[in-house]
């Protein structure tokens, strides 16, 4: 197959093209002016440019900035873990499984159930590491199972149908799981038992909170394991073969159905890990917890280039850091008020911004016409 489009040199520029260029210039300009104002404030809040941009600005301390970046990285690592599931499923089946955010939520819910039980038994405080491992495996198990059942019940019967159909089905599955969690666990917010101090407090040498370290370490480990699985094992080779050409993969003797189930299982396991990370980091979970992180993880997968696994993680970090740092780095110096409420707006503005500049995502290949959904 021919991988690239012919360059558009001869194509006439339309009004839409001009409008898009204008948007791109505006987006980049806004970021540049905001960033310049931030620098101006950091130099001296009284200088003329900083005063013009935002008279009330105070600047941001080095430690404050560092804290924001770390929070962004750990939040981004969580998005990245969830995004892997979106990206992998898109890679083999070519549709977005919008119910994947609910798999993450059910992972967090399972974690709440097991951690509460362990806390009642007194183990959560006395042996936090051991309990954490149990909680983690419980979540991985439930999330993996849920993802596999979802594939079998909701998506496999639709194999071969136009892509829009499984896509819409996934939205239905999403609502189903959300409501099922309310039926099973009730509609109230569930609080994880209190974490030991060493998890809550900053590590003395690194000056990073223990839970953030755990999240980042878990994401890094998962990424390495996934890389090994996909690039170095026979199962991974089968996954990549099915992603590229399922018919020929079957001709090689690969069991396409089993490979697709594996993809769902691995994506589910990562969502389960992310669910526990959420519980440890934020301490609570509710039936609709999966929605916003799910959508942001989907955005991360798109930003990184959907179908590209490294891209999913990079996209997650990009969105996480952007939404943590962006409000204070760009919006506040511009004089926008109440910036810390604008995290979500920044995250989705970043999605739009990246898509304006690079429609296929950071690592994405340009899609062939028949692959556009």
């Amino acid at each position, binding site marked *: 197959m021919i*991988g690239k489009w012919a360059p558009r040199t001869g194509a006439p520029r339309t009004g839409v093209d001009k409008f898009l260029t204008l948007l791109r210039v505006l987006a980049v300009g806004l970021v540049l002016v905001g960033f310049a104002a931030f620098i101006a404030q950091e130099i001296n809040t009284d200088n003329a440019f900083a005063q013009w941009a935002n008279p009330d600005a105070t600047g941001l301390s080095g430690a404050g900035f560092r804290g924001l970046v770390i929070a962004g990285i750990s939040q981004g690592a969580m998005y990245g873990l969830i995004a892997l599931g979106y990206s992998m499923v898109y890679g083999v089946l070519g549709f977005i499984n919008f119910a994947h955010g609910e798999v993450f939520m059910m992972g967090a819910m399972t974690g709440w159930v097991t951690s509460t039980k362990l806390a009642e038994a007194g183990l959560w405080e006395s042996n936090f590491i051991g309990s954490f491992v149990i909680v983690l495996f419980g979540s991985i198990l439930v999330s993996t199972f849920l993802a596999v059942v979802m594939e079998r019940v909701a998506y496999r019967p639709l194999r071969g149908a136009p892509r829009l159909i499984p896509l819409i089905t996934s939205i239905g599955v999403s609502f189903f799981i959300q409501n099922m969690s309310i039926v099973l666990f009730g509609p109230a917010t569930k609080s994880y038992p209190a974490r030991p101090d060493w998890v809550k407090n900053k590590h003395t040498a690194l000056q990073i909170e223990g839970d953030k370290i755990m999240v980042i370490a878990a994401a890094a480990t998962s990424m390495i394991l996934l890389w090994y699985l996909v690039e170095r094992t026979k199962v991974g*080779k089968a996954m990549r*073969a099915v992603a590229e050409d399922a*018919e*020929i993969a*079957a*001709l090689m003797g*690969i069991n396409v159905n089993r490979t697709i189930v594996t993809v769902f299982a691995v994506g589910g396991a990562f969502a389960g890990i992310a669910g526990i990370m959420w519980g440890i980091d934020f301490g609570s979970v509710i039936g609709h917890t999966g929605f916003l992180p799910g959508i942001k993880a989907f955005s991360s997968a798109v930003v990184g280039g959907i179908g590209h696994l490294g891209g999913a993680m990079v996209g997650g970090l990009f969105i996480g850091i952007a939404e943590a740092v962006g409000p204070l780095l760009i919006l506040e110096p511009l004089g926008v008020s109440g910036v810390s409420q604008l995290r979500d707006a920044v995250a989705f503005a970043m999605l739009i911004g990246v898509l304006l500049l690079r429609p296929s995502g950071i690592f994405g290949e340009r899609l062939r016409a028949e692959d556009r959904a």
Partner: protein
Amino acid sequence: MSDSTPAVEGATPLLEMRQVNTHYGAVHALKDVNLAIYAGEMVCLLGGNASGKSTTLKTLLGMVKPSSGQVVLDGEVVNDRSTAYRVERGVTMVPENRRLFQRLSVRENLQLGAYLRNDSAGIASDLEWVFELFPRVKERLSQKSGTLSGGEQQMVAIGRALMSRPKVLLMDEPSMGLAPALVKQNFELIEQIHAAGLTIFMVEQNANMALSIADRGWVLQTGRVVLDDTAENLLTHPDLRASYLGEA
């Protein structure tokens, strides 16, 4: 069978189609097709566009299910068996347009050919054999197969099929999409593989070239076998020359 009797009289065919009908929805793609391929043969199936050539191969491999009739592999009716089962029992295909995994390296493509095998020593020696047949492939092992030229891709596609150590190799339009200079070289290659002991069943539009190396062949017309003869007779058959080859 009619006058195109194979070399070995009375032997069981390696691969056989008995009264096979295949439908795509309302389209009747194969009509009562009978084919028998014996061990050691080089046979070809000729026909114009949409005559059912590729469908025949897909039906033999189980990628398409026949609506009636039997597909027999090595004496066993395999109608309800998966493609993987049939590949394991010794049949595989070099698909039309080669269909390599473009984003995977040449090495990975070859390894995938041996996906169902566990005999690492045998796989290693077959890999050496592929390198012997195609020294160019060895130089390109770690390259992404999508970056290879058409001729090199053809070598990898044949190599990938050989890595499953088939008894019978199906080839779907092996000369399609190749530069004219490569077509002849390609047929020499097929002869070379055949000489190494493989049974080959080839589907081709390039009838002259295919019949020059095949023992016998069939001609399909809109899903029906209309001619069934030795390659020699087919080459001079007035119907074939008139309807299919044109004046060559």
